[in-house]
């Protein structure tokens, strides 16, 4: 049994706000759900599957708040920012098993106005929590080791931000719309060696949602059929101290999702690569097979990720580095831009011509300590 072809994405919505002081977190989730359902031509009463992660707070409360009365399947798996790519896989699995027909996935929040949602403590807490490690310095440790083993440079990492900024200039909702240069990135303040401020994503409020259903229902709605053709998820931890920081969990998910879809990295016309930091992108590109391990620096250099210029257009909405990283979780917006590309609804300046095959991948949690990974292949079916 395979996930290939069992489900299609029929509705997407990205909240236009990047700062939301006047709305509640639940309200933002609701607005995102409303937007995605409207895009699909569906109503809340049609929804029988619901998926969300820790940003939604207490799962039961969010379901009750939105008045989702007809749920027959639900899941609140939280693997950080990549949760929503895993939810795509989980929802399609549930649809394939007949557990639900129309699944809603939401993400939203207000990290600048709310206190961070408390995360349940793990068994490692005594040894790790007191240090106060945060994503910038934890991801930085992985970047340092990658540089040490493969000679990756800060200039090469900077090209990832440069490419994202080239795309963000066309997105009216993007937080950062100025095109930047490699020198701009290198001259931005050092946050956590070797990552500069511009190696880091934005912190934004707002959110997004998408709707998954059967291909039959997708066709009946008259929407472009954006079909899930392959998906995979994995967890990578410290493994009792045997952790190797030169690769991410995407090594277990990218190739597997492509194999299920029956495609190769060179077939992919557009890629949404979760970009919490520049190193996150570089490592996933290697791990998913877009280039040889250790050659990610050369692969991303000289504009290779810029739509219309390079071989692999990525994050054409400006990504988390420039556009939006709602609630410090960038996986959902990765799915949205892939769907826009496949529908031909990306901004004309960044739309990939005849884009019929897209790849989405993300890692959530912390790259250098423990994280989840999820990948998906999406295809527009004529």
């Amino acid at each position: 049994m395979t996930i290939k072809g069992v489900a299609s994405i029929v509705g997407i919505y990205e909240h236009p706000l990047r700062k939301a002081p006047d709305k509640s977190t639940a309200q933002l989730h609701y607005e995102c759900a409303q937007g995605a359902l409207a895009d699909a031509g569906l109503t809340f009463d049609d929804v029988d599957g619901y998926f969300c992660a820790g940003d939604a707070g207490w799962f039961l409360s969010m379901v009750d708040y939105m008045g989702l009365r007809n749920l027959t399947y639900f899941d609140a798996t939280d693997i950080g920012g990549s949760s929503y790519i895993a939810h795509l896989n989980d929802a399609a699995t549930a649809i394939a098993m007949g557990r639900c027909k129309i699944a809603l996935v939401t993400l939203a929040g207000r990290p600048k106005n709310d206190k961070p949602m408390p995360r349940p403590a793990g068994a490692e807490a005594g040894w790790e929590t007191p240090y106060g490690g945060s994503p910038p310095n934890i991801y930085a440790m992985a970047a340092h080791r990658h540089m040490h083993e493969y000679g990756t440079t800060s200039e090469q990492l900077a090209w990832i931000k440069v490419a994202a900024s080239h795309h963000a200039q066309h997105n009216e909702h993007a937080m950062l719309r100025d095109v930047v240069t490699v020198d701009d990135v290198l001259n931005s303040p050092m946050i956590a060696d070797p990552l500069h401020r511009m190696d880091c994503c934005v912190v934004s409020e707002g959110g997004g949602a998408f709707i998954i259903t059967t291909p039959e229902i997708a066709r009946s709605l008259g929407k472009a059929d954006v079909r899930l053709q392959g998906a995979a998820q994995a967890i990578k931890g410290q493994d009792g101290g045997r952790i190797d920081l030169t690769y991410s969990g995407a090594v277990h998910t990218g190739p597997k999702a492509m194999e299920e879809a029956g495609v190769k990295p060179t077939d992919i016309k557009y890629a949404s690569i979760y970009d919490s930091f520049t190193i996150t992108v570089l490592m996933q590109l290697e791990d998913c097979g877009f280039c040889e391990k250790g050659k990610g620096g050369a692969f991303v250099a000289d504009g290779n990720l810029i739509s219309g210029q390079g071989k692999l257009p990525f994050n054409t909405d400006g990504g988390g580095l420039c556009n939006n990283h709602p609630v410090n979780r960038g996986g959902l917006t990765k799915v949205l831009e892939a769907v826009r590309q496949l529908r031909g609804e990306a901004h004309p300046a960044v739309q990939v011509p005849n884009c019929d095959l897209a790849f989405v991948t993300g890692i959530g949690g912390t790259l250098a300590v423990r994280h989840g990974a999820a990948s998906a292949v999406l295809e527009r079916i004529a």
Partner: protein
Amino acid sequence: MSYDKIPAPVPTPESQPFWDAAAEGRFLIRRCPACGEAHFYPRTICPLCHKADTEWEESPGTGTIYTWTVMRKSPRGAFALAYLELDEGPRVYVQFRPEDNDDLAIGKRAQIMFHPVQDGQPMMFAKLI
């Protein structure tokens, strides 16, 4: 970085012997009698082979820096995180003492140490040697 801004570790029944030894300046790891491997952080049942209860072992805490970073801006001041690859094998996620912030490099020798944090409780750190 000031130690009094670091919260004290909260022991569990499983980790209490580690923190008791830490109060005496001794660093403990656990090793599995079935697979012979040491691991970190300490777990009662081996997380590597899953076959046996592991045993406490005192370690000199010496090793080489596998990777590092200095967080330049933080409410508690600049501080360094690293993975120290112990001579026994495990790579340990650890904070370096602030005196070493400007001298860290992959491959340098270092050692686990303990320093009081909030409530005067000992927390695990590392120092260059």
